[in-house]
């Protein structure tokens, strides 16, 4: 690539966990970018053109070419900007394990979160059980993946799993406040809990995560109006 030919834009939304993943990656890599805030009730024509299949954020636009789907964007960023910290390990087996857990978080964990917030009564009680089950699986999986415990993380040592955990659980206090449910329980999931505490201390993370009060207000609005969260 030539110097000065690197135009990077991110179409995102300030409360979107998927959008935050990409912001974290760009900042870890030290990639300058222009951020475009999308109003999800009034999506820009550019967004609809860049992501004609799903019409969602985030979309990374690199020299005019759009890349969509947050996890795919992370891998794209890692492969394109090879200077600076690597987001993924080089070893194919380790990469496979990370991809497995990224898929688990996406399909299984988020799937169960979604059921939790969009159901009530008995169905919601079942959904709560399912969330705890999935969290259990994730905790066990991370324990096996990180037998020495959570490694040191800082602005230079920040990989894809750190990104996923930050974006998913970083704002846990806002989630607890609005939904009245302790998902990130330190007694049930000590590894995940201590990992999140470490991550939330890092200036990089503090600079990216949505402000607590603003997020609480949005989530309460969504909850009261029985809206479905969307990207």
């Amino acid at each position, binding site marked *: 690539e030539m110097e000065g030919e690197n135009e990077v834009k991110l179409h995102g939304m300030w409360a979107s966990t998927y959008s935050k993943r990409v912001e974290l990656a760009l900042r870890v890599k030290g990639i300058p970018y222009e951020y475009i805030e999308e109003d999800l009730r009034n999506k820009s024509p550019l967004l609809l053109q860049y992501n004609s*299949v799903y019409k969602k954020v985030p979309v990374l636009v690199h020299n005019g070419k759009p*890349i969509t789907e947050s996890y795919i964007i992370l891998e794209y960023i890692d492969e394109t900007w090879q200077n600076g910290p690597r987001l993924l390990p080089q070893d*194919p*087996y380790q990469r496979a394990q990370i*991809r*497995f857990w990224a898929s688990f978080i996406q399909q299984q964990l988020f799937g169960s979160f979604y059921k939790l917030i969009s159901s009530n009564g008995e169905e919601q009680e079942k959904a709560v059980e399912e969330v705890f089950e999935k969290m259990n699986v994730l905790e066990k*999986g991370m324990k096996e993946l990180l037998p020495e415990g959570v490694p040191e993380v800082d602005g230079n040592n920040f990989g894809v799993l750190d990104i996923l955990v930050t974006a998913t659980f970083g704002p846990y206090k806002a989630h607890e406040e609005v939904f009245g449910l302790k998902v990130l329980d330190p007694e049930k999931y000590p590894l995940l809990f201590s990992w999140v505490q470490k991550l939330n201390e890092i200036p990089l993370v503090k600079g990216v995560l949505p402000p607590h009060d603003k997020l609480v207000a949005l989530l309460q609005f969504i909850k009261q109006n029985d809206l479905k969260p969307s990207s």
Partner: protein
Amino acid sequence: MAEVKLHGALLSPFVYRVIWALKLKGVPYEFVAEDLSNKSALLLKHNPVHKKIPVLVHGGKPVCESMVILEYIEETWPQNPLMPNNPYDRALARFWIKFAEDKGVAVWKMFRSTGQELQNTMKEALEMLQTVEEHGLGEKKFFNGDNIGLVDLAFGSIVYWLQVIEDVAGVKIFESHKFPHLHAWIENFKQVPVIEEKLPNQDELLVALKLRREQLMASA
């Protein structure tokens, strides 16, 4: 070279994706047939999270989830590349792989449903096919260009099984006048020597899936 084993079952489209990838790369492997009604202790040990096939075990280390396995195979055995070599085209390929995973389920749901539910899943499957026809494949011979790649394997299993599932469920959605590109593509796909050699016989698959569907309906 460390040994390669594939735990699978021969009715599974997901298992076939892995077989095709290993064959395309010329990687020798041992196939371990699993009885899905009586899963082996080894399978449960290798895939405790999902307890599903396929599982690739390389040098004793398990890799689960068919598309994760395919990327693992691509990265471990770089000969005969099945992914584009620049990051942008790879990101596009991964987009379609994810699309196949997320939206392809409509086809498996069709297999499991009847009545109104069947109509609903058919509609979902139709939308999926339309998007792929227009945006995914376009005028290309294969999703990966002149030669097949991982995206072709992802959709190959979906479409080949769809053609049989249509017969099993007594419906028709994959019509050639509606999906001219995809129809040409699946014919080309089936004629790739490695694929042709390792494609379940359609008549046998039909009989087996018919039986499976009857069992599912009876226990529902």
